[in-house]
């Protein structure tokens, strides 16, 4: 990271939707800094017009997602002393989303997908109110740790490398939302069909979403694969289909559950 004069070279992508290029900034190396600190010092000294999004500087708001040395990471949680010494530190915007300027991308794709996902849908309220046991409350907690940094969405090759898949693919962040709701005992909506319709089958479980998650959510093992198995139950497993036919058991739709 630092050369003999305790300098660090930051190779920051500068540009907008019309194009851009990397610009090198040689900055004094300061012990204990994270990448966002150095970017802020670049703003304060050499490039006041450098655009970057940030907020909490504590790894909890999910604003400062970028690609540091080619890997999606939070700038505020990437210590400079963990990066290779003596080499420029490359900082680029997230590739999957349109660039607004410099390191700031338009992540509205994610909000638009979120709007298409039906909210929590409890059935009719029983006498005495809704109740959940602690073990069921705990089950979905892992998924609620998501800070919506959208790095899983960014690294997912289904949309990162295939822009044409965006209209039919929700992405890992929303697959764990489906998982959270599907594993909620009070939610009556059939999330398996919804997840299938939103492109769960396009995921080929290469686990990059899990690798980049700053909250260490096991997105693939605990969210996507359990949902894939549930979709198999609902759509592909002939024995499960026969079982439903013989027993007459099937999941109620939200409307049916609400009607009692």
């Amino acid at each position: 990271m630092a050369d003999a004069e305790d300098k660090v070279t930051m190779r920051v992508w500068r540009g907008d939707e019309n194009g851009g290029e990397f610009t090198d900034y040689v900055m004094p190396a300061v012990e204990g800094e994270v990448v966002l600190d150095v970017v802020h010092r670049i703003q304060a000294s050499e490039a006041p017009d450098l655009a970057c999004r940030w907020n909490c500087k504590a790894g909890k708001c999910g604003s400062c997602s970028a690609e540091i040395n080619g890997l999606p990471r939070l700038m505020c949680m990437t210590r400079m002393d963990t990066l290779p010494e003596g080499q420029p530190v490359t900082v680029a915007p997230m590739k999957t989303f349109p660039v607004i300027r410099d390191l700031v991308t338009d992540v509205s794709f994610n909000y638009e997908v979120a709007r298409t996902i039906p909210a929590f849908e409890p059935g009719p309220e029983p006498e005495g109110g809704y109740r959940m046991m602690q073990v069921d409350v705990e089950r979905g907690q892992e998924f609620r740790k998501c800070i919506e940094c959208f790095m899983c969405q960014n690294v997912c090759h289904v949309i990162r490398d295939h822009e044409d898949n965006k209209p039919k693919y929700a992405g890992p962040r929303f697959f764990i939302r489906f998982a959270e709701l599907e594993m909620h005992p009070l939610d009556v909506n059939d999330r398996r069909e919804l997840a299938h319709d939103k492109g769960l089958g396009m995921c080929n479980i290469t686990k990059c979403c899990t690798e980049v998650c700053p909250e260490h959510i096991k997105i693939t093992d605990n969210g996507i694969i359990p949902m894939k198995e549930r979709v198999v139950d609902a759509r592909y497993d002939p024995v499960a289909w026969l079982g439903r036919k013989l027993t007459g058991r099937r999941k109620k739709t939200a409307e049916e559950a609400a009607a009692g």
Partner: protein
Amino acid sequence: MTTTADSVTGTPVAIGTRGGPDQPTLRKDTWWVEPVVTVAVLTAFVVYSTWAAFVGKDYYAGTAFGRDLISPFYSPCIANSCVPGSHSFGTLPFWNYSPALLILIFPLGFRLTCYYYRKAYYRSFWWSPPACAVADGHRSYSGETRFPLILQNIHRYFFWILLIFNCILTYDAVLAFRQPYVVNGVEHSHIGISVGTVVLVANAAFLWLYSLSCHACRHFCGGQVKSFAKHPTRHKLWKFVTPLNARHMRFAWISLFGVAIADLYVRLVASGTIHDPGFHF
């Protein structure tokens, strides 16, 4: 910025001009090592297991060696060509080819559709993607939504079949404690332990761990229930297999090496290349 309609809900989805550097990857680390090693190891295994499956001999070390060891590639030995004593569970009279060719399709199917191996070969062989934040090697992508990859959804059936194989290989491992010998034309046996016994027991153990750590197993144990509170027994089962599931990749590799080593060891003993050291009680 442009928009297009979501295929299901009709909701507009933003598709803007992508900015940022137009390069396949900005990574400068050794991301290529993992796919290269995966290709090398899996290719070596496929080459070895294909040879071992077709060779059709030296898969059983029996009374002549004072042992009762069978290669996992050849168990259960149900072909016409099986050598006497090789733990037959019946014989298919019409099958005169190598017995392994009847058997290996099931473990192969299980591993081919395994969620871990899918990740491994999609990355290393198919470059889809070769590593995280490294460009996909293909122009178009439809994932596991079409034939043939939609068949990955039959993984659970291979899981159930593999449980039967695990039982048979466990039976083989138990029989490996036998050390048969012949006196006046009558077969007797000692109970003992040899290196071959340890190899077959370890092989069976790691195959069980690999199977029980499978994602389909976790689903059946309790992952599929809506409420753990209403299914306490399945919750306990789920809690038992979940830590195993976290080590699924490790068990996948160890058990892969395990079956190859077990086959090789039995082969070396059965061909008389090495002596299987051991003792009996």
